[in-house]
């Protein structure tokens, strides 16, 4: 469950990052349309909410929120560092984390 929540936090940070023109251009070679920006930001809020809900469901409200917040910060640092040195990996890494997270959530991890 924690891994899945981390995957959501990473994807949320990634979506927020790609909603910014500079990073969208770096990854996809074009600036995002305003519509795409709105869509990315809305997705990010949904993912953030999902991560917070998963954590509070598995660790209780107080500790769950502490985990959600620290996880989010670490996810942000991970996105930033990946973008700086391994730009091409930033999206595939999100997909990989999502799959691993989902598998671990299904198997009850």
């Amino acid at each position, binding site marked *: 469950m924690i891994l899945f929540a981390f995957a959501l936090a990473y994807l949320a940070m990634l979506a927020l990052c790609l909603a*910014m023109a500079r990073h969208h251009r770096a990854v996809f070679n074009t600036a995002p349309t305003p519509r795409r920006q709105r869509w990315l930001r809305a997705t990010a809020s949904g993912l953030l909410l999902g991560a917070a809900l998963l954590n509070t469901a598995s660790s209780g409200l107080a*500790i769950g929120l*502490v985990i959600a917040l*620290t996880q989010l910060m*670490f996810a942000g*640092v991970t996105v930033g560092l990946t973008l700086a040195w391994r730009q091409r990996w930033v999206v595939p890494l999100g997909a990989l984390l999502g799959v691993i997270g989902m598998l671990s959530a299904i198997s009850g991890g």
Partner: protein
Amino acid sequence: MTLRQSMAGLHTWGGLLPSWLLFVIIFAGTLACFDKELERWMRPALHTPAATAMTATDVGNWVQANVQAPLHAYWLHGPTEREPYWRLGWEEDESGTRGRVAFDLRTGRPMPETVGGEFFFTLHYNLQAGTAGMYIVGLAGMFMLVALVSGIIVHRRIFKDFFTLRPQANGQRAWLDAHNLFGVIGLPFHLILAYTGVAVFVASYMPAGAMVAYGGDPLAFYEEVQGGYHRNELNQPPGQFAPLETLLTDARERWDGAEIGWIIVEHPSDASAVVSVRRFDPSRIGSPQDALSYDAFTGELLHQQQAPAGYRAYIWLVGLHMAQFGGHIVRLLYGLLGLAGCAMLIAGTGVWLRKREGRQIRGIEIVRALNGAVFFGMPIASLALLWANRLLPDTLAERGAAEAWCFSLAWLAVAVFAYLSRRQPLGLSRRLSALLAILALGLPLLNGLTTPEGHLLASLARGDLMLAGIDAVLLLVGSLCAWYSLRSPQTKKPAREDTRPAARQQELAP
């Protein structure tokens, strides 16, 4: 002068001057997230699980038999999941000398002395320098808060540059990006930990109000604030002790079978002796404050602590800082964000240096020497401590002190080396990285040679991930340092060759 300009000077100097001290504090705090795991690593007798017949009474008997001086108090803690052994500490009445012992559950005898993971915890909150160190750390924490808040004010593009890190850019730009990335994304963590860290000893940092209200008696203040209990000494000989086990059974019944934490016996050689039992509950952010105090002889319950709401709020803040809740995941995340804090400090001094490299001012060499002495010295000294733990013979007298000496001397050696090589910063960092790599990669090997049950293969085979994790992290850190020291040197343009217009340069100012 605008607010931002005035804050820029404050951020530059208020950040630079305490940054080496803060690095020591934050790095030690990061290691202290795993203090109990390190403690187990440092005590080979604990590497494999053991069942125990040892009881609180046995530990109490040991202290009565082995410590001759009259005791002010002694305290003991039973085995837990993270600390699978009996712990004992005591304070002598007249000299105030403190001792501590950890018992091997198999033999019931004290294990070879070691400073253990607690060394880093103590280093984190008082630099191993007692009350004076505690005040220095508090001051550094307040400086950190000042630097964080002024940093928010001077940062022009806090959201625009949120994820921006351009390692290929010119020196100052790259370091500023890194400083911002680690500082801004980790900001909630840095702010909360700096604030709660200062709050832990707030009563010592700002004692005036309590001293006036309680007539200069800090003990009366603490007792009332905590809802605690204290019985004054009667100066009469003690009676026959009630067995500790019956008190613990009673406490467990009152708490519906909860686990027992610290057991504290106050002035055991006096007729007023009191046994206090604390609850152990790592499932909450603030640990429960409902200790039970018993008469040590009759076993009568004298007092049940009812902490006032203010104290519970304080304990919640302390708990948020100490990260003893929520299991390994919380400590892992705290540790990773602590490293982000260290990276923020390193990058911050990097910005300061790159900005001034063109001008040959004297401060540059001092900053370089301090960078080498602290940013490399502290990790190298920590590894030297772990090496000493494995290499010093078990029978050595004052073994813990010898370990601490190895830590200090290794650090001193690195500091001297850094001072001598301050004119060749690149060579300095490569050589010290190489040393770090040798120490970090060698330690798992040494571990394999000296501990039959503690090395990576044995711990992985047992599924003991916490013990294996320490060796795995050492291998990872060692490989990274080896890669850094062996890769071909990069030629980077020095900052003074920057030909961009002055307006852009201005924007780089932190």
